[in-house]
């Protein structure tokens, strides 16, 4: 069997039946073999889009996403997506073609050292240098991508190896990964911390969803009556109906969430890494709290803040062991009162007739199906989604967190729709971000996937503009996008039905039309460019000193 066929046969054996990619010279043998393979390939219109689609597939299913590209520019176009997957711990196997071994190192046509380029943005990278190593490398790649803290793995395969006979695939028993387990004493120490605390707050990160520990988390919160806050990637993990659910914390966190953390005496970080967007000024983050840190990655423990007790291991196993007999109801009630005091209202903006994104997104949250998947680009609209929409599971909210990659939303939505053909998938895009992977409209047209695109258009690079307004003396440098294309006409060029709205009374009917449309749909929403995201924690400021509204 040739290397190309063996590669696809291995993918099939792994249960991979859908991949994303873009063909080219060095990877042509694999694309030739695809014609005779049960693996379905989705052609995206840029390698970055293909890898984001694989990320959308992976994040909406908690399974490994697969992407294929050619050497040289195909490989370099993947770099941003690989970094995105690394920073958000997304299990990805990315296969790149490489020039034939005899040509390697000669600056051959479309040759680039993708192994070297990928080292710091992948969990692991491999270059297959002998036919015997091809299938074992793939086997290794799938295991590394998904075990422990997930991440992207790159496998670079020279063209001649794809064309050569390779040994038959013999499944190698690699044994189950042994995850670390905290000893009884450490669990006891954690429970002691919990029991001794008067004002505990649970701080939920993306690790909970990736560990498939959503139910364990919800039980832990419910049986101990604990208030909880979520990171951007943690949204959907906690039960939003729980009285102590306070929403997202951090730079654009909700006021109650930030105030709860700043006032707590025990912070229980679960699958979270105390990212700078979460902590604000680190020295003043949760200043009265002890830290109980649960994670699968030992490098995250003590990285940004010394933990008082740390539990290293599988959250699904650890969370059921945590309990505190002491009743925390009074504290929970205080937090519920704070939540009510700081609750967002959606009626105060309705008088001017203009569309306000928070109200629109709350309506979308109410109208969309409970298990709808919402993807985002990056910027103001992304924060409004995080603040104003509610999610039933972390696989329902796909947002580029660590890398903050504009252009993520549309291709991620395509990948999520491929993985979940019967679910509602909505890409909420900014006008700036949408243009970064606008070519993926071609992918939507080709496969007629019913992805809904909601463009929140303020004709600005809104978040940068907001910072220029607030922190750079209103010196607006290169953030005016008032010459945007007419998005609905752009969609129509791809046979995608589209509509434009600009006044508040149009919102509900337009959202209903969009959601009930059987095919792809683009809803272009014109916003006032003066609207900003509130609250905001200014740079080098403690979270409790957030600005809750315009000054």
């Amino acid at each position, binding site marked *: 069997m040739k290397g190309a066929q063996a590669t696809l046969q291995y993918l099939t054996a792994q249960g991979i039946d859908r991949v994303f990619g873009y063909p080219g010279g060095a990877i042509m043998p694999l694309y030739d073999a695809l014609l005779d393979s049960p693996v379905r390939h989705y052609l995206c219109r840029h390698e970055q889009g293909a890898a984001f689609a694989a990320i959308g597939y992976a994040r909406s299913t908690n399974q490994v996403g697969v992407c294929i590209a050619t050497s040289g520019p195909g490989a370099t176009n993947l770099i941003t997506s690989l970094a995105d997957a690394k920073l958000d711990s997304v299990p990805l196997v990315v296969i790149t073609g490489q020039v034939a071994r005899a040509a390697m190192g000669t600056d051959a046509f479309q040759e680039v050292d993708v*192994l*070297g380029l990928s*080292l*710091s943005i992948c969990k*692991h*990278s491999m*270059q297959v*240098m002998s036919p015997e190593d091809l299938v074992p490398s793939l086997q290794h790649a799938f295991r*590394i991508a998904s*075990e*422990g*803290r997930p991440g992207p793995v790159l496998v670079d395969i020279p063209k001649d190896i794809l064309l050569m006979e390779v040994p038959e695939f013999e499944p190698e028993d690699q044994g189950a*990964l*042994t*995850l*670390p387990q905290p000893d009884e004493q450490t669990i006891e120490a954690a429970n002691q911390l919990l029991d001794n605390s008067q004002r505990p707050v649970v701080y939920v990160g993306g690790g909970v969803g990736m560990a498939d520990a959503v139910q364990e988390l919800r039980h832990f919160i419910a049986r101990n009556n604990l208030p909880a806050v979520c990171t951007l990637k943690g949204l959907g993990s906690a039960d939003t109906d729980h009285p102590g659910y306070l929403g997202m914390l951090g730079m654009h966190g909700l006021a109650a969430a930030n105030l709860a953390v700043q006032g707590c005496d025990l912070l229980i970080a679960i699958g979270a890494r105390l990212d700078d967007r979460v902590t604000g000024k680190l020295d003043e983050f949760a200043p009265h709290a002890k830290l109980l840190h649960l994670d*699968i*990655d*030992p*490098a*995250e*423990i*003590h*990285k940004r803040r010394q933990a008082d007790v740390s539990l*290293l291991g599988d959250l699904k196993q650890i969370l059921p062991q945590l309990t505190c007999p002491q009743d925390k109801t009074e504290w929970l009630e205080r937090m519920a009162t704070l939540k009510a005091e700081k609750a967002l209202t959606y009626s105060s903006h309705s008088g001017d007739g203009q569309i306000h994104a928070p109200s629109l997104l709350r309506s979308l949250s109410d109208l969309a199906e409970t298990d709808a998947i919402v993807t985002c680009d990056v910027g103001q609209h992304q924060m409004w989604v995080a603040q104003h929409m509610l999610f039933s599971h972390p696989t329902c909210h796909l947002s580029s967190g660590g890398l903050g990659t504009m252009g993520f939303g549309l291709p991620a939505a395509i990948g999520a729709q491929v993985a979940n053909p019967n679910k509602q998938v909505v890409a909420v895009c900014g006008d700036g971000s949408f243009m970064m992977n606008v070519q993926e409209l071609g992918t939507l047209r080709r496969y007629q996937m019913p992805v809904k695109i909601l463009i929140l258009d303020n004709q600005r690079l809104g978040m940068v503009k907001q910072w220029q307004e607030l922190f750079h003396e209103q010196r607006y440098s290169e953030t005016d996008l008032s010459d945007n294309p007419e998005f609905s006409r752009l969609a129509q060029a791809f046979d995608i039905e589209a509509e434009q709205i600009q006044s508040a009374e149009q919102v509900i009917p337009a959202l209903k039309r969009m959601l009930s449309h059987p095919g792809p749909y683009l809803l272009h929403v014109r916003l006032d460019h003066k609207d900003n995201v509130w609250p905001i924690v200014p740079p080098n400021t403690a979270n409790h000193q957030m600005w809750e509204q315009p000054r």
Partner: protein
Amino acid sequence: MNYQIDLLLADQPAVLERVLQTTRYRGFRINQLNMQPTASQLKVSMQVYGKQPINILTTQLHKLYDLASLECQAQQNSTLGRRSLAAQTLPKTA
């Protein structure tokens, strides 16, 4: 603070680059470096300097899939060994 770090690594392509990149990115400067291939492994010894706690670096080096073992000592010979998190026998969970 100066540290002596001794690594045993699988002799795979780019393994030395991984060590160098990780060390630089995590904020440590290499003052001395020695690399010696054995039958199937690489022995790397390096003296590094950094202001941060050394476990910021060692926990990241532990993540390298080609790493077989790591020993670390502070310059004053107070053996850090694989103390604390770096000291545990950890699977490649991250």
